[in-house]
């Protein structure tokens, strides 16, 4: 049992009920967002994102493999999340726990369902060879709201990904590592996470807010303003009004977030 959150619960809840937060933000205001790409030269795509003091690094590595039998002409996308013990004093090494599995699956879904990556363009030899894109997400500093930070990082890394050029001569696949082309993308996506504390929905929770949350709601929004993913978490229920209000805010915030991708130099 964690004692500190039990002690701070009342004061944080009081603040939020007065529409104030410990770090002086508005209830629907993000912390400072910094995105850097091309941070790992050995990876075909990479990024480092800071959301407040939360920090994640993403590397994208492609390899050539066989497609799944039910989708023979479609590339493969795999997302894995490692929540490193360095990121928080309570994180343990070992196989992924259910929180990091949830993180990986939600980020995987938001990228997949937004159809950001044009998977059909990743087919190399129909039914036999496709590009497999491995997205590895490392959480190195945990100060709340991993979902949004991870989505920003994965999307930025994909925008930065370059695949080696492929030519096929006499049924042989030649990989030309010298000339690279951009990974073909057809959409952009962002995620906005809210937590319910008291009677309010609060955007971009800090760690101390996450520690005392009643419920959590993450909403993925595409460039066109469509909802493509949603995930509720937390021990308490949400009202329908909470959900609808958050959806509206998420749709308007996504414009702000997606603009960040264009600002990456």
């Amino acid at each position: 049992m964690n004692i500190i959150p039990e002690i701070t619960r009342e004061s944080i809840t009081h603040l939020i009920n007065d529409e104030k937060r410990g770090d002086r933000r508005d209830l629907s205001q993000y912390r400072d967002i910094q995105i850097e790409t091309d941070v790992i030269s050995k990876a075909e795509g990479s990024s480092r994102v800071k959301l407040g003091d939360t920090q994640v690094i993403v590397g994208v590595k492609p390899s050539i493999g066989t497609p799944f039998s039910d989708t023979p002409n479609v590339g493969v996308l795999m997302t894995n999340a490692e929540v490193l013990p360095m990121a928080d004093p309570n994180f343990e090494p070992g196989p992924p726990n259910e929180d990091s599995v949830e993180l990986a699956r939600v980020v995987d879904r938001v990228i997949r369902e937004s159809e950001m990556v044009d998977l059909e363009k990743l087919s190399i030899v129909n039914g036999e060879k496709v590009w497999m894109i491995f997205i590895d997400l490392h959480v190195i500093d945990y100060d709340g709201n991993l979902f949004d930070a991870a989505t920003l990082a994965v999307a930025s890394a994909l925008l930065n990904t370059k695949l080696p050029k492929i030519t096929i001569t006499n049924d042989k696949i030649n990989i030309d590592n010298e000339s690279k082309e951009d990974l073909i993308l057809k959409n952009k996506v962002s995620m906005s996470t809210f937590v319910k504390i008291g009677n309010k929905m609060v955007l971009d929770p800090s760690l101390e807010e996450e520690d005392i949350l009643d419920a959590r709601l993450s909403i993925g929004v595409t460039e066109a303003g469509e909802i493509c993913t949603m995930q509720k978490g937390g021990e308490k229920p949400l009202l329908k009004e909470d959900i609808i209000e958050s959806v509206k805010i998420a749709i308007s915030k996504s414009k702000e977030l997606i603009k960040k991708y264009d600002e990456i130099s």
Partner: protein
Amino acid sequence: MFIITSNDYIREDGRSFDQLRSLKIKSGVLKRADGSAYLEVGGNKILASVYGPRESFIRRLLKPNTGVIRCRYNMAPFSVDDRKRPGPDRRSTEISKITADALRPALLLEDYPMSMIDVSIEIIEAEGGTRCAGITAAAVALADAGIPMRDIVVGCAAGKVDGEIVLDLSEKEDKDGQSDVPIAILPRTNEVTLLQSDGKLTEEEFTKAIDLAIKGCHEISKIQKDALTAKMRDNS
């Protein structure tokens, strides 16, 4: 409160847009478990069992100020077309977690410090919508175990198929459809305890889907209660 416009769209399996698949629930189907339920909806066959509240030998999971609920969602290898490798994978780990989150608000866990409730959901055969059906079955098993609850949680999904918002997607509709919104609620208050969404929806379509899913939950809720009273009748 439901703004559901009428619609004469007929789905591939002959259902109307707001029609559930045929649903059967039986409670108290296992002898050893403290509570149990069996549920069939469409081609799904699902068993749920409950043990507890009890002391667990995994001491580190227990909490001094509250009880804990632990869920295990598991698919049998023979439940799907291509044999599923036994054991937990990422999907079942996630579903186990959100199932516990979905059921927890109904329980009075603060009354059971240092104890654990174990819920186990076994998908014997899968045909779309297993996470909601698993939650629905598990809630019946919790009631069957005689565990005091604020409400009986119930789950149901709505989604978008061929551009139409429809209730309770079948496996085929889930595969061919554009999106899926599984939810679970506490039916007395309509509070939402599980919410996921997969696939593109506009804000308006999402609102429609959640209203439709809540309506479906209320229909299933009646069948859950019938299953519980039927067992009482049989025993008397």
